[in-house]
C-alpha cells in the first residue's frame, strides 16, 4: 500500500523549466515517478526532455494528462500563487519544495486549503517518497528501501540520515514524508499519522521533530488516544540556546514554549520510544522491532 503516492500517481511539475525544477523532474523520472506534465506559464506547447508536455496552466495538465499530484519548484514570491492554482486544479497531492515563502502568504494558502480535498506537503521541505514506487521531491532515492516503516520529519538531511540508518539495518520504509520546517506548513504530524494508522504496509512509524511550535505535542495527544502501532521519536535542537528562535510568543498561544525537553516529555508520556542520540535512532527501531 504505502500512503499518498504510489505507482499510479501522475505528477505535474510546476516550474519544470527552471534549473532546480528540471534537474529534480529528471531525477524523479529516473526513479520511476510518472511525470506526466510540466507547467511554466508562457512555455505551453513545448516539451520537457522531448517527452513530457509543458502547459501554461495546471488545469490543462489535469484535463489533458490526468495529473493528480503536483511538485512545485517556483520562486518564493510566486510560490503561494502556484499552490493556490494547484488546489484549484483539484489535485489530490501538492508538494511545495520552495524555501522562503512569506508567512502571511501561507496564512492565505491554509485558508484556501480548508474544505478542499487537496493535501499539501511543505513548503520548505524535501518532499516524499514511497520507496520502489514513486518519489516526489529532492531526496536521494538510493538511500531508501521498500519496507514497513512510515516516517514523518520536519527536517531534510536529518531525514536522510535516519533513513540511511534504517536501510543499513535492513529496515525498509513504506512512505517517508518531509513536512517542512516553516512556521506554517500544509500538513503536520497529526494530519498524516491517521493515514499511517490505516495503512496495512506500515507496521511502525518514526517521527522526527524540532524545537519551536506545538506540532509535536499535538502529535503526542493523537498518538496516545488513537495510534495503534509503535512510534519512535527524535527531537532536534536539544542544545539550541533559548531565545534564538522566532515564534516564542507564538508558542504561548497554545500553552507551550517549544523546548526539546518539553517535547521529549510529551512524547514519552504518550508511549513513544524516544531517542536523544541522533546516531542511535536506527538501532533503537531495530532493537524494539526484534523484541516484537
Amino acid at each position, binding site marked *: 500500500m504505502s500512503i499518498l503516492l504510489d505507482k499510479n500517481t501522475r505528477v505535474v511539475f510546476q516550474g519544470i523549466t527552471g534549473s532546480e525544477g528540471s*534537474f529534480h523532474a529528471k*531525477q524523479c523520472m529516473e526513479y520511476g515517478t510518472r511525470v506526466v506534465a510540466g507547467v511554466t506559464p508562457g512555455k505551453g506547447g513545448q516539451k520537457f526532455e522531448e517527452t513530457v508536455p509543458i502547459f501554461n496552466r495546471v488545469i490543462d495538465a489535469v484535463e489533458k494528462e490526468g495529473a493528480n499530484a503536483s511538485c512545485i519548484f517556483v520562486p*518564493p*514570491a510566486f510560490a503561494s500563487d502556484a499552490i493556490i492554482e494547484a488546489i484549484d486544479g483539484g489535485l489530490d497531492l501538492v508538494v511545495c519544495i520552495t524555501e*522562503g*515563502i*512569506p*508567512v*502571511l502568504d*501561507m*496564512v492565505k494558502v*491554509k*485558508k484556501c486549503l480548508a474544505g478542499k480535498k487537496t493535501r499539501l506537503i511543505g513548503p520548505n521541505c524535501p518532499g516524499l517518497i514511497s520507496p520502489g514506487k514513486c518519489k516526489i521531491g*529532492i*531526496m*536521494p532515492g*538510493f*538511500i531508501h528501501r521498500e519496507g514497513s516503516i512510515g516516517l514523518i*520529519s*520536519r*527536517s*531534510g*538531511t*536529518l*531525514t*536522510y*540520515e535516519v533513513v*540511511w540508518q534504517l536501510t543499513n539495518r535492513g529496515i525498509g520504509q513504506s512512505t517517508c514524508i518531509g513536512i517542512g*520546517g516553516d*512556521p*506554517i506548513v500544509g500538513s503536520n504530524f497529526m494530519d498524516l499519522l491517521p493515514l499511517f494508522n490505516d495503512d496495512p504496509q506500515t507496521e511502525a512509524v518514526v517521527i*522526527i521533530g*524540532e*524545537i519551536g*511550535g*506545538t*506540532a509535536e505535542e499535538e502529535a503526542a495527544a493523537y498518538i496516545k488516544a488513537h495510534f495503534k502501532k509503535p512510534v519512535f521519536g*527524535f527531537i*532536534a*535542537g*536539544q*542544545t*539550541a*540556546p533559548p*531565545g534564538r528562535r*522566532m*515564534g*516564542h*510568543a*507564538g508558542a*504561548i*498561544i*497554545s*500553552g507551550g*514554549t517549544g523546548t526539546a525537553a518539553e517535547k521529549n516529555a510529551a512524547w514519552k508520556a504518550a508511549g513513544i520510544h524516544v531517542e*536523544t*542520540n*541522533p*546516531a*542511535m535512532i536506527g538501532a533503537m527501531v531495530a532493537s524494539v522491532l526484534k523484541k516484537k
Partner: protein
Amino acid sequence: MKIHEFQAKKIFSEYGIPIPHGEVAKTPEEAKAIAEKLGGTVVVKAQIHAGGRGKGGGVKVVRNADEAYQAAKAIIGMNLVTHQTGPQGTKVKQVLVEEGLAVEKELYMGVVIDRAQAVPVIMASEAGGMEIEEVAARTPEKILKAAVDPATGFTAYHARKISYGLNLNADLVKKAAPFISSLYKIFIAKDCSLIEINPLVITRDGNLLALDGKMTFDDDGLYRHPELKELYDVDEQEPLEVEAGKNKLNYIKLDGNVGCMVNGAGLAMATMDIIKIAGGAPANFLDVGGGASAEQVENALRILLSDPHVKVVLINIFGGILRCDRVATGIVEAAKRIEMKLPLVVRLEGTNVEDGRRILKESGLKFDVATTFEDAAQKVSRLARA
C-alpha cells in the same frame, strides 16, 4: 529582522497609534536639548534590540534637562547587559528621550502568528509591564486572544472582544478600536512576525498610548518592503553572523569550542546535540546549504575559524543530490587555501561516499575521516578536551 523601539514607534505614529512626544539623541547634549524642548519630567531610554533594558540600568526617569544630560551621558556608550543580550551585553549608541507621563494603568497588547491555527492573533492582557511569557506561564487566563480570519480580515468585533475584555471604560473602548485596528493593519502591511506594546498605558487624563514598541519582520517578506531596509542596524548583529549572511550561510554563534559545518538545519541541530552527548560543546550552528561548493565550504571554514574559541572543526555532510566526491574536493581545496591549523574531522555519508573519503585520504592533508555520525562526535569531543 528586529528594529529599535523608536523606529517601531515611528511606524505606530504613521498609522495613527498615539505615542509619547520624544526624539532620539546620540549625545548627552542632544538629549539635554530634547529634554528642554519637552519640559518637565522626561524618560531616557537606551535603544538596543534586547528587552529587559530597565533592569539593566538602561532606562532612567529624570526631573529636568540637566539630569537628562547626566542620564544620557551614563547610558550612551555603556555596555548594557540584560537577560536577552547575554553576558557580553550590547553597546548603547543612542537614547530615546520622551515626555514623562502620569500613568494610571499598564496593559499589554501584541499581534503574532498562531502556528497551530495558521492565522494572526491579537493578544492583550491587563497584566502589562510584565513579560508576557511569564504571564502565560503563571496566569494564562489573564491573556485575551482574538484570532483574525484572513477571509474576513479585522472587524469591529475583534476590537470589542479585546477592549471589553480589558475592562476599559466606555470612553477608552472608543479610543481602543482605532488603536487595535491600526496595530493589525501594520502587522499585515509590513509582513510582521511580531508586534508588542508592553506596556500600553492608560494615562491619568484618560488616553491610550504605546509607551514601548517592539516589532519583528518576517525575513521572507522583506523583499516586498524596500522601505524597511534602512531600519536594519548592523551593529546589533553578531559580526560573524553578518559575514555569514553575506555568504548565504546560516550561522549562529554559540559558546562551545567545536566548530561545526553541516548541510541542512535539522542535521546541523542534531550534530550540535550529538557533540554535547559525547561530552563536547558546539561553538556554533552552521547550515552550509544544499550547494556546498568549494567556495561555500571555504567561506564557512573562514567564519568558523574566526571564532577564537574554536579548537576543532567537524564537517558533517550527508550527500544526497550533492555528491560526496564534489564535497570532498571542495573541502580539500578550501583547507589548502586557508592553511588549516586546527584538527579537522570530516564525516561524509551518502552519494559517492567512497570516492569522497578517498579524495580526502589522498589529499595529503591531515583530515580525520570519521566512519559514522557517532564516531565523528566522539572524535571531536576528544580533540576539544585535549
